[in-house]
Every structure is written in structure tokens, then in C-alpha cells.
């Protein structure tokens, strides 16, 4: 049973339950499938750990009993990743925004630079991340800065493309109107092009939000990194054979970071783009 997710902000209280229902339904179905598969195919704890054992793992203390609970450690590292992703998102977002405005004003620049902008995204981030992390490390920059740069690297591209499209989406008549008022170039931008492009910008920011988290995690993978959910994933992967639960837990927390980030962008969109029905 699925209900269409009708995004009516400020709806009646009944709609909240109606919107939560499909989410709860999907989670329940997934959990049932998980445990059902274990029973049906007779999978061992090593092949597919039971939900019970994953939850149990959450509450085992780390460092031979001296450290915090595993879930606390995971969440703390998830929070570290979140902060890096957010920093990279802001840097990349501003860069993408700036490039889009520049390209709109100077189409010559767009023709000249766009191939490199696109090219930058076809190079696997896995190849670039170690270069950035190691390079920045040699220059004595703090590790979080290098990670943010990698997150920003993945963020700016969708923002540039989406924002550029948005800036060009003002209708000819809405531009004629500005012309009839003898508006200044800044007024064209501030009172027409920018507000018109906001829905496009937010679509791009939603894509960029998950890209920034991926970037932050990938930047945590090169050896030497000490915190972040990427480090947790690497550690857990090393002990996967003996204790697979930890990796599942790390994946869950990584997913949680991504979902929270995405939710933040959606929230900002609701607060800013409030004229849409």
C-alpha cells in the first residue's frame, strides 16, 4: 500500500500521519525482507548478520572496553563527516553560483571553460581525493580543509549547471517588463533572474547535498585520516569476516548523514521558495 506523497506544506494534522505511513511501511517491509531472507536461505551471521546482532553491536564498547559505545563512536564520526560535507557544500555552492553568474554574463567564458568544468567531473573522485589530501597535507593545511575541498569539488558542478539554467529561464516577456521599467543590470539580476532561478538552484543543491557527503567520505579514505565515517567504513571492512555487523552499522550511519543533509536542503527550500503551491 502506498500513498502519493502530497507535499502540501502546512496541511492538516491528518496529512502528517498519512505522510509518515509510507515511510514506516517501507522500513517494516525492508526489515521483514532482511530477516525473511536469512530464514529462507539459511544465511549465517557472517553472510548476513541478523538485525538483533547489529543492534547488539551498537552497544558494545570500543577499545577493549575502555572507549565509548560503538554507536556513539560511529555517530561522532558521522558528525565529523557531516561538518566536512557542509563546509565543502558551502564552498562548492558558492563556487558553482559564481561560475554560473560569470558564464551568464560572459558567454565567451562559458564556451571556453565549460569543457574543463565537465571534464573535471569525468575524472573519478577516487583518483583525485588522495592527490588533494596528500598535497594539502604537505603544504601543512589542516586535514579538514583538504576534505572540504574534495567535497566542494563534487558540489560545484551540479550547482553551476542548475544555476546557469535557472538564470536563463526568465521568460522573454518578464525581461521585456524589466526593460520597460528601464531597470539597471543589477535590478534585472536581483529582482528577476535570481528569484526565477531559485527552484533550479534547489534542485541542483539536492543533488549536490549527497555528492558533498560522498566527497567527504572518499576524502577520509586515504591512509592517515583519523576521523570521519569513511575511517569507520575502512576499519569495519578490515574486520568484515569476523564481525560484519560493524560495516552494516557504518553504512547505516553514512546513509543517515546523507539523508540529514538532504533534509536540511529540503527544509531550506520550503522556507525560501514558499510561493509554490
Amino acid at each position, binding site marked *: 500500500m502506498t500513498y502519493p506523497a502530497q507535499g502540501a506544506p502546512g496541511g492538516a494534522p491528518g496529512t502528517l500521519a498519512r505522510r509518515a505511513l509510507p515511510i514506516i511501511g517501507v522500513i517494516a517491509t525492508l526489515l521483514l525482507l532482511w530477516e525473511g531472507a536469512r530464514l529462507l536461505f539459511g544465511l549465517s551471521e557472517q553472510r548476513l548478520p541478523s538485525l538483533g546482532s547489529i543492534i547488539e553491536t551498537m552497544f558494545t564498547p570500543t577499545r577493549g572496553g575502555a572507549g565509548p559505545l560503538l554507536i556513539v563512536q560511529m555517530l561522532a564520526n558521522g558528525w565529523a563527516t557531516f561538518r566536512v560535507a557542509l563546509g565543502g557544500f558551502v564552498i562548492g555552492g558558492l563556487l558553482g553560483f559564481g561560475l554560473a553568474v560569470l558564464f551568464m554574463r560572459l558567454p565567451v567564458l562559458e564556451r571556453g571553460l565549460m569543457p574543463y568544468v565537465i571534464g573535471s567531473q569525468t575524472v573519478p573522485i577516487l583518483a583525485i581525493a588522495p592527490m588533494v589530501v596528500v598535497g594539502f597535507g604537505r603544504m601543512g593545511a589542516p586535514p579538514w580543509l583538504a576534505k572540504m575541498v574534495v567535497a566542494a569539488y563534487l558540489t560545484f558542478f551540479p550547482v553551476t549547471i542548475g544555476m546557469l539554467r535557472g538564470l536563463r529561464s526568465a521568460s522573454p*516577456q*518578464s525581461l*521585456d517588463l*524589466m526593460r*520597460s*521599467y*528601464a531597470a539597471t543590470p543589477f535590478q534585472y539580476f536581483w*529582482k528577476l533572474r535570481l528569484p526565477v532561478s*531559485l527552484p533550479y538552484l534547489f534542485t541542483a543543491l539536492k543533488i549536490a547535498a549527497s555528492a558533498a557527503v560522498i566527497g567527504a567520505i572518499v576524502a577520509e579514505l586515504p591512509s592517515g585520516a583519523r576521523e570521519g565515517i569513511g575511517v569507520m567504513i575502512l576499519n569495519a571492512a578490515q574486520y568484515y569476516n569476523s564481525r560484519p555487523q560493524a560495516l552494516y552499522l557504518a553504512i547505516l550511519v553514512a546513509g543517515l548523514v546523507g539523508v540529514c543533509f538532504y533534509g536540511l536542503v529540503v527544509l531550506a527550500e520550503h522556507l525560501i521558495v514558499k510561493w509554490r503551491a
Partner: protein
Amino acid sequence: MNTPPIIEFDRVSKVYQSGGGPVTALLDVSLSIAAGEFIALIGPSGCGKSTLMRLIGDLEQPSSGTVRVKGKTPEQARLDRDYGIVFQAPVLYEWRTVRRNVELPLEIMGRPPAERRERAMSLLRLVGLGDFGDAYPHQLSGGMQQRAAIARALSFEPSILLMDEPFGALDEITRERMQTELLSLWSSAAPRPTVIFVTHSIPEAVFLADRVVVMSPRPGRVQRIVPIDLPRPRVFETRESPGFFSLVTEVREALRATENERVEV
């Protein structure tokens, strides 16, 4: 018409370069319009009536000939904010409330917020939208949106009003009501703005205008100018008077003549 013309076309032509070669949208158009006149431009698609209007607004430039607006170039007139414009679509900015849409031109012209707000609200009341200032455009019907667009065009009291099929997307009932409302807005303004009103509808042109400029297509030319001597104020009964019918017939005949001429050529 002893007053000097507010708008003057002197042998104006407009040629567009298109993929299939040059297209003559207007050929050798001469026309003068007096201050305070209500002019309707009518003709089949491609007769250049919208182009004519856009030349006045400096939204396009003539290929040859000259256009003068208040004795100035159209560009200077635009920079002096001499005209307000209304399109067939309301073109309200969807992220602004109705009131702030009406305020937009005043905002761009740097008027103080209190004055803007007061002016916008009094205009919205005038067009019957006094209770909808805080609504967003999408919450309004098509007719209401177009009223807001008219209020916006009038907000800075321009001496010229350019209207490009403003009621073309409305149903017949709303349309006739809007025509009457427009006339009362126009006649109550002091001084009366000069209105250039582009339309496809013969009864609409006759009901509103002092003169109907009948245009013919390919190339766009002024075919005939029909003076409309119906008494003002024009009311519901005007549309049922014999004088109205005979003028509608006259304009229709003039339009048909453009067809015949084209067939012969």
C-alpha cells in the same frame, strides 16, 4: 486633434532576418496618435500590430524610418518611463505577492516603501483586488491576474499605456467586463493616458477605441483607419446600439478587403 501627436510613425519599416530569408513585418507605416487617444490596432496574425506596439516601447528597433514618442526617441521615452505595458499573459512575478507585483515598477524607480505600498493598495482597490494584496499570483483567476497586471502598469502613472491583446486569454463574459473596467479606469485618470491596444476582436476594438487602425499582413501595413464616434461613456447598451453594429461591420469590411487584396496579389 489640434494637439501635437504624442506618438508619430514616419515611413517605418521593420524587417526580420529569419532562417528562410528576410521577413518584412512592417512596410512604410506612417501614423500619428494624439495625446489621450485610445487606439486599437487590429488585423490578422502577421500584420505587424504587435511589432508596431513594441517599436513604441523600444522593445524593438525599426529597420528604416523614424518613431517619435513625446518628441523623443523611443529609447529616451523608455528611459524616462513614459509607458506602461500589459501583455496577453499577466507576467506576474510568481515569487511576489500581488501587492509587491504592483509595487515592482515603483521599487525599480526607487520610490520610498510607504508611498509604494499606499499606491499599490489604492490601485488594487481600484481594480477590485483590495482583499488580494497578500495573495500569490497562482491563487488568483486569470481575470484577476490580468487586473493586477493592469494595476502594475498604471502604478507609476505613465502617459502611455501599451496593451498587447490583454484580454485575449479571458472568457467572453470576463472579457466584456474587463473592457468596461478598463474604460472607466482610463476616463477617470487625469490626464487620460494614451492607449495603444492590440486586439484580434472586432467588437472589442470598436467598443474601446477612438480610432481603429486596420492592418493587413505580409507585409504589415496600415490598411485603413476607422474613426469610432460612439459617445462616451460607453456602457453595456453601447454594444447593442445600431451605431455599434454599423461600425463593427465597417471594420469587418476593412479587414475583409485586406484578405481580398492579398488573394489578388
